[in-house]
């Protein structure tokens, strides 16, 4: 884990209200794994006070990429970063996706900005059969940047399958059943809950990247508990996650 003041190379709006920020950060670029995240201090001043957690969206040489939308003050300021500015990165944090293991078919399931970690994962899944299912409320929420072999679902039917992405997945069950499959997922909690149920029912391995408000991002504040099967203990999203086997946590 390092703290690094990384020069911003560029910030581009790659989709309506979706930004891709490239920062030069060799030490993090060389260490980070898909599904791990960075905790970013956006200004050098005491406001916004806390770092903001972002998944690494992609890595290319010495550069790391973040994909985000303008949500509040922090992401607004981030979207304005230009060459000559810096971002202060604390990383790599958390446990990423487990790529290793005995499976043939990697299925990515993303909802909205849950797409963020998957361009990098897609690269690293090299050699596996990959299918990507992306959902959103409308066509505009569907972010396909950097992904492969994509099927889309929108709630209003404006793009692809009309319905949610887990329903779309269900429709593909016969095809999925043909291979030993592992699902990698990230998105809103209702999606993850539905997905968890689907995967447990059909005995499909599934890893989900979860979110939670965080203060530190590395285990010292106890601010990010997640309920587990064990009653008398929480796990920490930042340290024990953010990626969990869906069977281990209550989403």
């Amino acid at each position, binding site marked *: 884990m390092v703290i690094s003041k990384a020069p911003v190379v560029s910030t581009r709006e790659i989709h309506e209200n979706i930004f891709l920020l490239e920062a030069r950060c060799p030490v993090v670029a060389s260490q980070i794994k898909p599904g791990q995240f960075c905790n970013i201090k956006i200004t050098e001043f005491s406001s916004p*006070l806390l770092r903001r957690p972002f998944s690494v969206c992609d890595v290319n040489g010495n550069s790391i990429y973040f994909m985000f939308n303008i949500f509040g003050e922090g992401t607004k300021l981030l979207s304005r970063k230009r060459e000559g500015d810096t971002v202060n990165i604390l990383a790599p944090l958390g446990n990423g996706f487990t790529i290793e293991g005995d499976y043939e078919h990697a299925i990515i399931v993303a909802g909205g900005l849950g797409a963020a970690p998957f361009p990098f994962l897609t690269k690293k899944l090299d050699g596996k059969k990959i299918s990507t299912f992306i959902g959103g409320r409308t066509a505009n929420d569907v972010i396909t940047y950097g992904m492969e072999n994509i099927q889309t679902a929108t709630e209003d039917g404006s793009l692809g399958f009309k319905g949610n992405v887990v329903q779309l997945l269900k429709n593909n069950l016969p095809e999925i059943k043909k291979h030993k499959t592992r699902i990698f997922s990230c998105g809103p909690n209702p999606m993850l809950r539905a997905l968890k149920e689907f995967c447990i029912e059909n005995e499909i391995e599934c890893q989900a990247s979860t979110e939670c408000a965080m*203060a530190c991002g*590395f285990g010292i504040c106890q601010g990010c*508990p997640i*309920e587990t099967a064990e009653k008398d203990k929480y796990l920490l999203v930042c340290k024990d996650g953010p990626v969990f086997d869906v069977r281990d946590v209550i989403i």
Partner: protein
Amino acid sequence: MSVDLSVNIGNLKLQNPVILASGTVGYGNEISNFTDLSKIGAIVTKSISLKPRKGNPPQRIVETPSGMLNAIGLANVGLEVFINEKIPFLREVNSTVICNIAASTIEEYVECTKALNDHDTIKAFEINVSCPNVKEGGLTFGNDTNAVGRITEKVRAATGKPVIIKRTPNVATISESAKVVKQEGGDAVSAINTLVGTAFNIRTRKPKIFNVTGGLSGPAIKPVALAKVLEISRNVEIPIIGIGGIVDWSDAVEFMIAGSTAFQIGTINFINPNAGLEIIEGLEKYCEETSISKLSELTASYQI
């Protein structure tokens, strides 16, 4: 010029006045990835209770303007795991450990103190009579000056190590209870713990924090904390450990001028886990520039 940064709190000598605040560094493991704990004045471990505590359900934290609210609910590993798993690490990295104790009864405070007293690694006790996030616990004690006196007396009797009482700022006159701490043999007071605060989600109309209220920390509370330190300093002769909103060396200097013998940094550890060492460097430079040979001269040097 070489500057003497050391300070004394009762018979506890610290190599410098920078202390990492309870609840903001866990038991030291994670933060030691970023900072050298052997160089920090001291570390106060997360409030420990007799039995492990699961803590509050999420959401436990929320950011506020220049501050944050937390309601962790004193989640901690409990006395046994603390002794068996946490103390050995702290000994190994050679850090000066102050053990913070939280309890629901006076007996529990005493029992914890006794159980920990034999451990050499623990150099002092900080008694949390002020946590705002546990129902049966701290806050009621903290508001009751008599209870603070009784706790001080009993814990004092249970250990020969320095006893530091951590006070709630949620009272009108903090100096009164500091007087009581002194009378009952306490070695120092830590001021302040967090201020009670809340925040609401304007769509769901629910509190943003599961526990309804939380404790406000960070730069937002610095002026309030400084005023409490000054109040104690002007009214009671007892070493004060100043806490609240410190992010850099200049904040630390303000706290010392206002009356602090040493000070603790909390929230800033989440943002810059090496802040403690940077503050030490900054203090050293400040002393050189202003020709201060002994940093402790700064304490209560206010010109009023």
